[in-house]
Structure formats: structure tokens, C-alpha cells
């Protein structure tokens, strides 16, 4: 369980993180989303004892990170895949960490195998690694101590589509076994597939935090018929609010079943009927990344 309460971090007159609160329950993957510079890395550095909070707390299973006796055995941390000694081999990097963690040397080979760096790649110096390989090495280091919690900052950076799929499998497997995962990204689609919960941060403030389904639901149903006018009348007759969407489709303010029933009752054949999944979140996210006003009202309601 990761618990962040009223966390504020100020640099001089600049607020990097302002009154951030959220929690990550065991058995879930929490996607920590926000544009670059929104405060994701600062929050994670405070969580891992690498920066002091100006006020507020960040705890893991109720304890401050610095109070964990052997932190790496509880929390696997990957904050920057580039922060490895270029002159060390991948295996040596892990061997040093294994000494500190007090895990058997065999564990190094296990995690190298697990992240796909076994064999000749393990003996290469990190300076010769691609960014994708460094991410894999960083994930291996995070898994080395067999932790219950994973904290990963932009772990998908530099991974190819295969690598991203592999990482999704790894993280959901970890959560299915009861682990807690917090991973950040500035790209919605990177975490959408794996996260159970989403925390969206912009300009240092949490603008949305809830279960993914909760955030994606409530955004309505996209419905389209050849005879758009007839469909519109059918929806009005059923008392369903709707507004025009792209390509002559309508965005109805209820679930797909109600819309389908209304159309069937009026005898209007449909070309398309689907949940408007993520449309609202994507829109929010687009506004955020384009530096627009982060206060999108209808998502504020979804705040947990």
C-alpha cells in the first residue's frame, strides 16, 4: 500500500507538487499520468526518500521509505534508467545491488532471464546498452529484492511495442499476485491497458484520481445510424440526452444498452454502438499536454 497525503514540495518560490493525495492499494496497478514537468518525478522521489517533502507525507505500508530497514526488499524502484554506471556490465550492476539486498547471487541470473537480458547482453557494459535495454536492466534491479511494491518512473520510455507488451504482462502479473504498482507516464495509451487506477496530475496538482473504469465510464455512448435524424428522434423519445459527435454520430449520455433499446424500439438500424471509452480522459489529457486549463469540470466529479 502506497499512501500519499497532502504532499507539497516547493523549490524556492515554485511549487513542484501541491497538496497531492492518493493511494495505491495492494493488488492493483496505478497509472500516474501527467505531462512532463507536472510533478510526477518529484512525487516519486519524495516517496523514495530521495527528496524531502516541504509538507505532507508519503508512506509505504504505513512507514516512511527511510524507515524501511532494507528498502529494496520491500520496494522495487526504477526512477531513471539512464542513471547507471556506463562502465559497469549489466550483471555487475545487479551483483552490487544483490550484495546490498542480501539476496543470493542466483537471483541476479533469475531476473536477467526474466527481463530478457540473460546471455551475452548481461556481460556488456551499460554504456553500450540501448535505452530499451537500460529500462530492462532497471526493471531487473527493481525486481531483484523480490519486493511487494514497485515504483517505476516512465518505464516504457525507449521500449519497443514488444517490450511494452512484455512489461504490461509483467506488471499485471505482479499485481495479480498481490503486489502494488505505481508507474508514471506522460502518454495515456501506455498505461491505459495495464492500469486499474489512474491518477492524473497537472501543474503539481491532482486533477483526477479514480479507478480506470470509473474514469472511462460516464463519458457516454457513441451511436451512429444512416438516418441520423431518425436516431435523434428515437433518443429524444426515450428521454436520452445526445449531442452531435464526429462523422454524423451522436454522443448519448447513457450506456450502450439503453441507446440500443431506444433505437430498436423506434426501428432505426444502427451502424455503430460503443462506449465512448476514454474520450473524456483523452480530451482532458490533450488539454493538459497542450498547456491548456487543467480544470476540466466534468472530470473533477470523478475524483475519488
Amino acid at each position: 500500500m502506497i499512501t500519499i497525503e497532502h504532499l507539497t514540495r516547493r523549490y524556492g518560490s515554485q511549487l513542484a507538487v501541491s497538496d497531492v493525495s492518493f493511494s495505491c492499494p495492494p493488488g492493483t496497478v496505478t497509472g500516474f499520468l501527467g505531462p512532463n514537468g507536472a510533478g510526477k518525478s518529484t512525487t516519486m522521489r519524495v516517496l523514495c526518500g530521495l527528496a524531502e517533502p516541504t509538507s505532507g507525507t508519503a508512506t509505504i505500508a504505513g512507514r516512511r521509505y527511510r524507515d524501511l530497514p532494507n528498502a529494496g526488499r520491500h520496494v522495487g524502484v526504477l526512477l531513471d534508467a539512464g542513471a547507471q554506471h556506463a562502465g559497469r556490465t549489466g550483471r555487475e550492476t545487479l551483483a552490487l545491488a544483490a550484495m546490498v539486498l542480501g539476496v543470493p547471487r542466483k537471483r541476479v541470473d533469475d531476473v536477467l532471464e526474466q527481463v530478457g537480458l540473460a546471455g551475452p547482453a548481461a556481460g556488456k557494459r551499460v554504456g553500450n546498452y540501448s535505452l530499451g535495454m537500460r529500462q530492462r536492466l532497471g526493471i531487473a534491479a527493481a525486481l531483484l529484492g523480490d519486493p511487494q511494491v514497485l515504483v517505476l518512473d516512465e518505464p516504457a520510455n525507449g521500449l519497443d511495442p514488444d517490450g511494452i507488451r512484455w512489461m504490461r504482462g509483467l506488471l499485471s502479473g505482479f499485481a495479480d499476485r498481490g503486489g502494488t504498482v505505481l508507474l508514471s507516464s506522460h502518454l495515456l495509451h501506455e498505461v491505459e491497458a495495464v492500469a486499474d487506477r489512474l491518477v492524473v496530475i497537472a501543474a503539481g496538482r491532482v486533477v483526477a484520481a479514480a479507478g480506470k473504469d470509473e474514469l472511462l465510464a460516464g463519458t457516454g455512448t457513441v451511436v451512429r445510424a444512416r438516418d441520423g435524424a431518425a436516431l435523434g428522434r428515437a433518443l429524444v423519445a426515450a428521454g436520452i440526452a445526445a449531442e452531435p459527435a464526429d462523422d454524423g454520430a451522436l454522443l448519448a449520455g447513457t450506456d450502450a444498452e439503453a441507446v440500443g433499446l431506444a433505437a430498436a424500439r423506434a426501428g432505426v438500424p444502427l451502424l455503430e454502438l460503443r462506449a465512448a471509452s476514454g474520450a473524456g480522459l483523452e480530451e482532458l489529457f490533450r488539454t493538459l499536454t497542450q498547456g491548456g486549463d487543467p480544470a476540466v469540470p466534468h472530470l473533477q466529479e470523478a475524483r475519488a
Partner: protein
Amino acid sequence: MTAPTLPAADRLPDVPAPGLGTLVRVELRKSADTRAGFWLLVSLGVLALAAPALILFFADPPDKALSEYVAVAQLPVALLLPVLGILLVTSEWSQRTALSTFALVPQRSRVLLAKLLAAVVLGGLGVVATLLSGVLAVALTPVLTADPASWSLEPAQVAQTALAQVLVVLVGVAFGLLLLSSPLAIVVYFALPTAFTVLVSTVASLDWLRDWWDLTTTTGPMYSGDLQGEGWAQVGTSTLLWLVVPLVAGWIRVQRSEIA
């Protein structure tokens, strides 16, 4: 490939913290497991052997005693050990490994203490290397030259030399902690005390500064085992200035700084 086992409940198992001995071994290994670190150690060993060889072949018999061989072997070691001490700290920042080091051991003072102890071990190993190289040179003197072997070496020289070398390697660590940058710390380490030595040695009215605050001057007699009386107090004051002050300031800096 093993699947990690995870407790379903949100309870952290009690795992002991890594012991100080383990952390010291990790730091020692870090100083030798990169190409730069490895070759620095090799050149230290080679130079510790080469310096007595010069005496062996080019000096006159009175200088071919064990005490002389050991004394001359200190010069390259005293030059390179502080660099080793600096890199022990600054490579964590130049290579940004501080991020994972302090994520694994968030109690930063434990890591810093381990680095200091590792530096002491390296200083001790450096002195052992010079002793071995001195012994080798004495043994080879009658074989390679017409001069006799002379095994004279005062215990005081060994003890004071070891102390001086440990002091200089710790000064390196202190400069590394204070500046957190390899090139900056190395340049400042060599430039600042040298400039100070030159200044206080050339200006006659600054003699008291040289005698009490210049580490190069005060530790000079230690390499021949001649430090005594007031000399110890002078080593104390100059150590305060060049070791304790930067060490304390650097320690506080690392404790307070954000690791990014």
C-alpha cells in the same frame, strides 16, 4: 525463471538491513569494477613498484635501505590515493548511480560511513603495497647491483606513513563530498592546497600559516617517521582545515540535497 512470491496482505516482512561490513565491501568493489577504477588501481600498484626501482638502479648505497625504498614508494601512492577517494564519492554523481545507491540504502549517512571506511582500507592497502615493493627492492639490491641489502626500517616510519596515507585518502573523500563532481574535485584538490603551500612558503611573514595550517608541510616528517611533539598538534590543526571542515560541510550537503 522464477515467479516472485508475494504476500497477499499488506504487511512488510522483517528483513535485516545490510550490515556496515557489507556496505564497505560493496564500496570497495565499486572502486575496482569499472575500467577507470581498475586501471587507477593498477597504475597505483605499478608506480609503487617503479619508484623504488629508480633508487635501486640510480642511487648511491646509503640510500638503498628499506626505509628509503618505502619512503620513495609513498610519493606516487600519496598522489593517486586521494583521486581514488574523490572518485569513490563523485562517480556516484557523475554517473548518477547515487539515485539507485540511496534508493537501496535511504539512510545516507550509512553509505557515507561505508565510503570513508572503504577509503581507509584502500589507504592501508596502498601502504602494504609500498612495503612489499620496498622488501622486493631490498631483496633484489645484492642480486642486481654490487651493493649490500639493508633491512633497516623504523616501526615509527611505518606507523606514521600509514597514518599520513589514510589522512590524504580521506581528504580526497572530503573534497569529493563537498564538490560532488569528479573533474572539479580533482582540480580543486590539487590546485588549492598547492597554491596554499606556494603562497605560505614564499611569503616569509606567513611562516606560521605554513607550520600550522599547511597539510603538505605538517605531514612531511611523517613519511620518514620523524613527527614528534608540537608536530602532532600541527598535523591536528591542518587536518582540521583540510579534512574535517570539508568533510563535515560535504556530509551535510549530501544529507540535505535532493538526489536526482
